[in-house]
């Protein structure tokens, strides 16, 4: 495929053309201006896919589990796209993206599309442009889009603000990893998977995790969401979602069907209760804010040597405060317009 303008790729993406999907994903990832309008267009066609985030520390078995889960989803006839994120090297900016190593089982299945992405300096577990790549895959007709995050640990909560259903993977034998998931991660989990349950030390991990969840409930920490009732919903609907703990072994295939059942039940509960709309609104808010930050950073960089430098000088001489300078800069830059 030689050069095709992004605007022309959109129609092909909607038809499910693999090369067009892949190329537009590349442009979304690099953030080129040329693709901006095409991605806006794609966004309007997206919104049908169930977005599932999988997070957990490196080595916990995410890629392996995503592969087993994908095979299970495929058996139900649904098409699956995977966005697998690994870190960029802070030194060279390059990356080695190795999640595909574990994905042999679904290689060659035309109903599965795997895209590897590097973080490119983004914190919080996602990659720059990751959610726009998700839009492309969603618009292309994949029923489920699975995002495998980098797995940095405690701070990795971005995925929960991007996915409808978040699965946190813990594994035995990774030292005090239960301790590591304690903080924010505990609260973002809609479902807990304890992977590698073929290992003898897995029972311990499951017990630890269940204890911790029980304690969190005792201490009044938010754990599980009370799903708001949709007007007119049947009164006997189960509205409380308690994150289940599911033991899985990707090696033996144990627990994978249960995990899929839990994921599907969670999505149904979100939909029935109206919580799905609330989550969509939260995702929208986060994305809009992130986009605003991005635009601002770019404009800031463009004027670094000009007006920004002047204002910085004035701040150093204590003529204006950083806050006053920022307000002035925003007024002058007319940030939403074009440079």
């Amino acid at each position, binding site marked *: *495929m*030689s*050069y095709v303008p992004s605007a022309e790729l959109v129609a092909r993406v909607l038809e499910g053309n*693999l*090369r067009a*999907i*892949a*190329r537009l*994903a*590349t*442009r979304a*990832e*690099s*953030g*080129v*201006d040329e693709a901006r309008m095409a991605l806006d267009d794609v966004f309007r066609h997206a919104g049908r896919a169930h977005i599932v985030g999988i997070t957990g520390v490196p080595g916990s078995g995410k890629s392996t589990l995503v592969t087993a889960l994908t095979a299970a989803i495929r058996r139900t006839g649904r098409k699956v796209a995977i966005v697998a994120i690994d870190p*960029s*090297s802070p*030194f*060279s*900016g*390059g*990356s*080695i*993206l*190795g999640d*595909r*190593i*574990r994905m*042999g089982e679904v*290689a*060659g299945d035309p109903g599965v*599309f*795997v*895209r*590897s992405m*590097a973080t*490119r300096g983004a914190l919080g577990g996602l990659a720059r442009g990751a959610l726009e790549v998700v839009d492309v895959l969603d618009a292309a007709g994949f029923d489920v889009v699975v995002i495998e995050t980098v797995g940095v640990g405690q701070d990795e909560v971005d995925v929960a603000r991007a996915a409808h259903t978040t699965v946190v993977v813990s594994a035995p034998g990774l030292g005090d990893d239960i301790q590591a998931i304690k903080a924010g991660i505990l609260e973002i989990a809609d479902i807990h998977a304890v992977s590698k349950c073929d290992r003898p030390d897995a029972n311990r991990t499951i017990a630890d995790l269940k204890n911790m969840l029980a304690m969190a409930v005792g201490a009044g920490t938010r754990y599980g969401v009370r799903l708001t009732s949709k007007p007119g919903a049947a009164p006997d609907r189960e509205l409380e979602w308690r994150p289940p703990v599911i033991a899985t072994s990707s090696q033996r295939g144990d627990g994978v069907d249960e995990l899929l059942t839990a994921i599907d039940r969670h999505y149904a509960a979100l939909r029935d209760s109206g919580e799905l709309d609330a989550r969509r609104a939260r995702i929208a808010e986060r994305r809009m804010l992130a986009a605003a930050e991005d635009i601002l950073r*770019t404009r800031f960089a463009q004027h670094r040597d000009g007006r920004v430098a002047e204002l910085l000088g004035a701040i150093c001489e204590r003529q204006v405060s950083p806050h006053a300078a920022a307000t002035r800069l925003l007024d002058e830059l007319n940030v939403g317009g074009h440079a």
Partner: protein
Amino acid sequence: MDASQDRIRVIIAKVGLDGHDRGVKIVARTLRDAGMDVIYTGLHRTPEEVVDAAIQEDVDVIGVSILSGAHMTVFPRLVELLKAKGADDIRVVGGGVIPDDDLPKLRALGVSEILLQDTPPETIVAAVRRVVAERGAR
């Protein structure tokens, strides 16, 4: 606007039963350290899987390492599959243990570059950059 828009994407693969993976790992690290995004497939892939993955990942280059002697079947198959899928803008490079006599044949088949034992990292990086530059923008 953003330097990353020019970031080269490469998929590095081992095909067939060949289990020699020292070289392929060195090549992957070398290209990462040169600022490229490197997708590593791991061992035992089929040419079909490699080409499908290359398309999904929208790579500029497929790099295959072969030390098993299967190069005269694997490389032609890769080139043929890329053509059949309308993806022959994706360039193929290779390395490993390959007799000199086979090099011109592989080049004639459409393999852009072959780099053998003891190739220094700079040469590998320069070769990949050159192959991408020759292909032109897309």
